[in-house]
């Protein structure tokens, strides 16, 4: 019997064949702890009675949700993290470099075939480079810090096959939103999403990140892509036989296969207040917008900022709309400065903020009030996520976001 990609990654790690449902203990290549969870993970680690971190070089601390601090006690999290890193010899600490899920691949940590866990549900993002990665709680993270390993259940896999050429106004965000709508918010619970097909092959690594990132919104344990030459360029590693072996066998067994024609995709939004409440943008015409948010670990990359800039060049955000742009990392911010993207966005009236999680988790500037509408490129539109529980959050692509900012209503034409 053949294996799916996730079965191969886990099998390689434990040194024997695995099948869905097997419970195995894996050694962990990377542990990511974000600023919100640092004090809790440290407290649990100490309660467990460990005297050293099993593998300090595998640990990465990243301050992003609370950056810059907006509430009185936020900076305690940075202090606790710094003290923990100092005490246990953890060298990988990013204090102002950007969002954790961007940095874990961008800064050269997670590579194809690796196994990574993080204290944030969007840890699934690293599936974009063919790694197995998923979110866990701080208690389990404390256990990994002390032991270097974690038990996992080998997931079943759902294959998503997309072939053909995407329409010009459709991005990978529209693809993943449609898939979540079809699967529903719990349709992939405990399972691995494996993305394949000619459309997927043609996507940039940045576009793939958007899809891996949102796999968890369908309940998935991970959302992975077969690593290819583009992946290896991004990860700065050779495209060798070891990497080429990281693909599903032809006779791999899937719990479900979803097939799509790229030509059938249209721009869509996830409407309030569920991620699987998907509607074509064309059906939302006339919905007035108060604010637009371009950023997050879902869509805060250079290609997202450039897509918005191409639309906003020489134009202006309509006067009653505030458009907030938050690059996902310092590197992206710098590249967008150098190629003129930031200038275009600023001239168009956008508010450009420092890299970080920003408005996505309702902690940065841009909190909204009852009945206000925000078109946002991030991954969740839950009640109260960006202000009061009566704020209406429409999740959309950077293209839809930029066009809506100019029109003052939800559009993509």
């Amino acid at each position, binding site marked *: 019997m053949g294996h799916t990609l996730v079965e191969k990654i886990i099998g390689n790690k434990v040194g024997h064949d695995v099948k869905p449902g097997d*419970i195995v203990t894996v050694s962990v290549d990377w542990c990511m702890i974000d600023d*919100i*969870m640092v*004090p*809790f993970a440290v407290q*649990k680690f100490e*309660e*467990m*009675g*460990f005297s050293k971190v099993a593998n300090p070089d595998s640990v990465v601390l990243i301050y992003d*949700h*609370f950056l810059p601090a907006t*509430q009185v*006690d*936020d900076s*305690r*999290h940075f202090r606790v993290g710094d003290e923990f890193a100092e005490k246990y010899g953890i060298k990988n600490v990013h204090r102002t470099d950007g969002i954790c899920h961007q940095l874990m691949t961008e800064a050269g940590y997670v590579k194809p075939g690796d196994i990574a866990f*993080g*204290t*944030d*549900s969007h*840890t699934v993002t690293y599936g974009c480079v063919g790694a197995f990665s*998923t*979110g*866990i*709680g*701080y*208690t*389990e993270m*404390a*256990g990994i810090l*002390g*032991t270097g390993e974690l*038990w996992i259940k080998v997931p079943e896999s759902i294959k998503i096959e997309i072939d053909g050429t995407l329409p010009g106004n459709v991005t990978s965000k529209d693809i993943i939103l449609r898939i979540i709508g079809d699967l529903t*918010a*719990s349709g992939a*619970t*405990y399972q691995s999403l494996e993305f394949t097909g000619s459309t997927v092959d043609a996507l940039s690594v940045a576009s793939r990140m958007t899809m891996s990132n949102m796999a968890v919104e369908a*309940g998935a*344990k991970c959302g992975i892509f077969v690593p290819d030459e583009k992946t290896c360029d991004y990860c700065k590693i050779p495209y060798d036989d070891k990497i080429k072996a990281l693909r599903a066998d032809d006779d791999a067994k899937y719990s479900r296969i979803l097939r799509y024609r790229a030509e059938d995709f249209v721009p869509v939004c996830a409407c309030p207040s*569920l991620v699987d409440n998907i509607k074509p943008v064309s059906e939302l015409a006339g919905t007035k917008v108060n604010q637009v948010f371009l950023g997050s670990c879902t869509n805060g990359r250079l290609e997202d900022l450039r897509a918005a800039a191409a639309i906003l060049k020489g134009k202006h955000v309509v006067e009653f709309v505030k458009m907030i742009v938050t690059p996902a990392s310092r590197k992206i911010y710098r590249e967008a400065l150098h190629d003129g993207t930031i200038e275009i966005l600023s001239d168009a009236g956008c508010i450009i903020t420092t890299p970080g999680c920003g408005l996505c*988790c*309702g*902690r940065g500037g841009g909190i909204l009030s009852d009945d206000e509408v925000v078109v946002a490129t991030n991954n*969740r539109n*839950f*009640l*109260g*996520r960006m202000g009061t*529980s009566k704020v209406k959050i429409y999740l959309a692509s950077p293209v839809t976001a930029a066009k809506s900012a100019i029109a003052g209503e939800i559009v993509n034409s």
Partner: protein
Amino acid sequence: MASGSFEKVYLDADKEIELFKAKIWKLGDDIDTDIILPTEYLAYETVEEMKPYAFSPLRPELAGQIQPGDMIVAGNNFGCGSSREQAPEVVKALGISCIVAKSYARIFFRNAINNGLLLIEQPDLYDEVNEGDIAEVETGKEIKVNGKSYTIASLPDNLLEILEAGGLVKAMRKKNGLE
């Protein structure tokens, strides 16, 4: 045995089978972690401080109404969303004896077990009970509500071990020779 007394009867000391009565609070499908505890309260130093804000985006009054020993009954995908472990911690701190849902999101499921919060998966009960009903739970066996019995499954052994140790912290302390 009165409901809300949080009294547990151990039927079998070795297997930790418990029998208890609990009043039902009924929630819907896709109860996400932002509903269970919004981001703005995650950084409070203690779970005690977080308690009043549990479920506040959906039902601001609920945290004040829940009594120790009560149970939550919900639909599909309970605990979907973020990996915040404050979500099961705050539910446990409110004194909830167990959650009975059609299904759970996986991170919440692991986090709950690691904190010693009992989760029960049951496909039919949700559609047939009302808020305020009293349930009788016999872990690993059945739940009785309004005269009807609903079968429930046992957890896998590796999870039972963690649950029986009182959560992952205690299991690790044992491993480190501290308990």
